[in-house]
């Protein structure tokens, strides 16, 4: 599903965020990307979300070279990806249901279907009783579950999470990881960037360890 070939990303003055990264993630796989701060985890995810372009090498998703995508093609590509961030990125002025349903809304899904799909995923993450609440009324764990519901509402083939448990206590982190495991069990490819070794041990999946932009170890 994801293939990188000698992928590098550098910024000005030759500072490399990623260097000569060659990696394959199969369809339906659950992979952790780990490493210390500045190792290049988030850079790799930004390249995958096509927020940035690689400086060298190739990044292919389902055989598509992301560097060659036009603007409409990028939009189309992103519709097949779900994403979860450490800081949730929920819209404070929208309710839980609206935070989730606005994704299908902006993709042109009819209103009834928007709400039905949003309710289904919120039910799946166990928040069907909080659909009228605003983000500030939710705990951190609940907010992250809303963000996961939002990521899943389009039934993505690939789920990308950048430090999804960074703002959560250990119990909630395990809860979120269980959700990711269930999502993966449904056939979705899951890529999680984290530096939490406990979580990685708990889930027990393939782990790519990055250090200074290079692959230091694959476990």
């Amino acid at each position, binding site marked *: 599903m994801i293939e990188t070939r000698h992928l590098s990303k550098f910024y000005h003055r030759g500072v490399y965020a990623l260097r000569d990264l060659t990696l394959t993630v199969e369809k339906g796989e659950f992979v952790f990307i780990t490493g210390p701060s500045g190792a290049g985890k988030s850079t790799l995810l930004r390249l995958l*979300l096509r927020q940035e372009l690689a400086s060298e090498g190739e990044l292919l998703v389902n055989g598509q070279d992301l560097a060659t995508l036009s*603007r409409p093609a990028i*939009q189309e590509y*992103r519709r097949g990806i779900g994403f979860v961030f450490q800081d949730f990125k929920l*819209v404070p*002025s929208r309710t839980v249901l609206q935070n989730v349903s606005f994704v299908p809304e*902006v993709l*042109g899904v009819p209103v009834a279907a928007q709400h039905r799909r949003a309710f289904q995923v919120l039910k799946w993450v166990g928040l069907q009783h909080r659909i009228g609440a605003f983000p500030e009324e939710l705990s951190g764990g609940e907010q992250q579950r809303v963000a996961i519901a*939002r990521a899943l509402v*389009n039934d993505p083939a690939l789920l990308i999470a950048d430090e999804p448990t960074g703002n959560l206590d250990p119990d909630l982190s395990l809860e979120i990881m269980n959700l990711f495991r269930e999502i993966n069990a449904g056939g979705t490819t899951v890529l999680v960037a984290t530096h939490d070794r406990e979580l990685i041990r708990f889930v027990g999946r393939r782990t790519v360890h990055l250090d200074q932009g290079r692959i230091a170890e694959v476990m």
Partner: protein
Amino acid sequence: MRLIRYAFREGWTSLVRSGTSTLFSVTAIALAVAVLAAVLLFTTNVERWLDEWSSSAELSVYLDDGTTSDERGAIEDAIDVSGIAASREYVSKQEALARFRDGFSSLSPLAEGLDGNPFPASVEVRLAPGDGVEAALQALARQLITLPGVVDVQYDRDWLNRLAAGLDVVRRLGFLLGLLMALAATVTVAAVVRLSLYSRRDEIEVMQLVGAPVGYIRGPFVAEGVLQGGLGALAALAVLGAGFALVRSLYGTALAQVLEGLPVGFLPPVYWAYLILGGMVVGAAGGFVAARQAV
């Protein structure tokens, strides 16, 4: 249609949320529209007066006391053939004196003291309104003054033309000022919408990452600008209308006396539509500029 509904719903929510900053941009647009509307109010009224004056504009052909009926007939034929006369009327010496007495009653003793009647007979020609009359009128005046029995020809189009030209200058200056203010309003709207963009940057990032079409991302900000522009224009028209009504109620009688019955009215509805549309376009431009820079 769904996109437009979404854009305006989100734009309205953002507009209400922005509060004070929205007030700035609405005020900026209102000022620009108010300047334009005030200029239009002035020029449309003066144009109405010009029309009135034009329709009552006259060519006076003064006749020698010894003008024969044949000579008068030739003069009247020349007027009829010219095609620029809506009507003509012969005013005898006696009628001219009577008119003087009626029109200038305080000066009538002056006329009583005169030997005989000093007022000449004349043919008064009411001119047909319309463009292109000016050249024909000048040609007719040149022709009439050469005819036997004519002592003078006077017409009052010159000052009307000068007034029309002056009005055109006022209108152009007003539009220029309005345009400059509209540019300033566009910049203000762009700044306010940029604030709105900044406060919604997470939402925009999420929309970009889910692959939302550009129209869905930029649309609400353009709609916010349109709403600001529309509200500004409505506010300007409301204030101007209220001011107009107030002046009319306070000084209506005095104005009517000064203007001698000339019509005074507020802007016609089609101008309201243009001004509101103009305000919306200015707002949309500001919103689009800001959204395009950011997304």
